[in-house]
Every structure is written in structure tokens, then in C-alpha cells.
């Protein structure tokens, strides 16, 4: 465990989480959420939880991003207000 690396990753992760809920465009929010999942994968792998990291990379960054984009393609991307 390198605490400087942990600190930087956690800070970037919090930034991604705040950005994902504040950005207006839903497609941008989906891509930021995928970046959040990627940082979470590195954190799980650093905490020696390789199984969880694997699941997070496959499901969090891969499958849910595709599912969200498929759902967005059937709706409008940004709200009108």
C-alpha cells in the first residue's frame, strides 16, 4: 500500500463521482462513470482483492457502460430545462 498513490486515486475518484452527478449530458455522465469504475478497479487490485477488481473491470467498466449507452440511445441525451 503506497499512501500517496491511494490518496491521488481516491481524490480523482471523488472528483469523478461528483462530476458524474453534476454534468448535464447523460452520455458524458456514463463515460465519467466508466472512468470511476476503472479507478475503483485499480484500488481493489491494490488492496489485494483481485477477484473483486476483475468483476469491477468486467461489469462496472464494460457491461454497464454498454447498457447505459443502449438505454440513452432510446431517450434524449440532455434535459430541456
Amino acid at each position: 500500500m503506497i499512501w500517496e498513490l491511494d490518496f491521488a486515486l481516491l481524490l480523482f475518484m471523488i472528483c469523478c463521482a461528483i462530476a458524474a452527478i453534476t454534468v448535464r449530458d447523460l452520455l458524458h455522465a456514463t463515460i465519467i462513470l466508466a472512468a470511476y469504475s476503472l479507478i475503483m478497479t485499480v484500488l481493489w487490485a491494490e488492496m489485494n482483492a483481485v477477484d473483486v477488481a476483475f468483476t469491477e473491470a468486467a461489469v462496472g467498466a464494460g457491461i454497464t457502460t454498454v447498457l447505459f449507452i443502449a438505454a440513452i440511445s432510446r431517450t434524449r441525451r440532455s434535459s430541456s430545462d
Partner: protein
Amino acid sequence: MRENVVIRTVSRLAVPFIQLFGLYVIAHGASGPGGGFQGGVAFAAAFILMIIAFGIADVRKRINNRGIMIFSIFGIALYAAVGLLSILYAGNFLQLNVIEAALGIPHLHGILIDIAEAGIGITVMAIMISIIYDMADTGGESA
């Protein structure tokens, strides 16, 4: 869907390697990181890449709804069969060491775990493709 030769060529090259990696994760799950769920999801990711590159109609020709139904039932039946086999040898569900002790074959315990993991992987792969089919199918019109 628009024709794009770069995306099609790269995904045609990448899909076999992703599928091989998924099979490796399933087979290696008992002795290292990975397992049936992760390998099944990696295998389904190859099909999702094919849906993105070639369109959903082309992938439906390779694996249709009937095939998904057969794969999902076969996988969970394989898992349940290995689990219930240990009850026949007076153990608990998935207590595989009683089978190894009764038959006397070395490393049978690991082989049975791999069969159960393969069952989990097949079911997870089929269900993931089924979810993507239901979400991404626009009924013929291009998304």
C-alpha cells in the same frame, strides 16, 4: 449501422482473443483469481463487441433466443448436477471431497470444481447476451 472498416477489422481480430481469455479465466478460477462469473462476463463482452461492430442482426444469426435458452438451462443444470452428486455420496451440497474419498481418484475434487465453474460461466454468458439483446434491439430501425 454505418460501415466502418477499422472497427470491423479490429473487432474481428480481438474477438477470438477475448473469448480465449474468458475460457482461461473460467479454467483457472479454482486456483487463482477469476472464476465462472468473471469468465462468463468476459466471454459475453466478446459478443457485445460483435454487436457493436457488426450489428445485432448478424449476431442473432450465430446465437438466437433458442440458443440462449438452451445455454442458460444447460449451464445451471451442470452446476446443480455437480452439487447434487455429492448428496448421492452422503455429503452436503457441493461437498466434493466425499466423492474423491469414495472413488479414490486423485484430484477429482478439482476437476468437479472446474465443471461447476464451467456451468456458471455458460449461464452467465447466456444471460448477459440475453440482457444486451433485450436492451439493444430497436426492432429493425437503426439506433
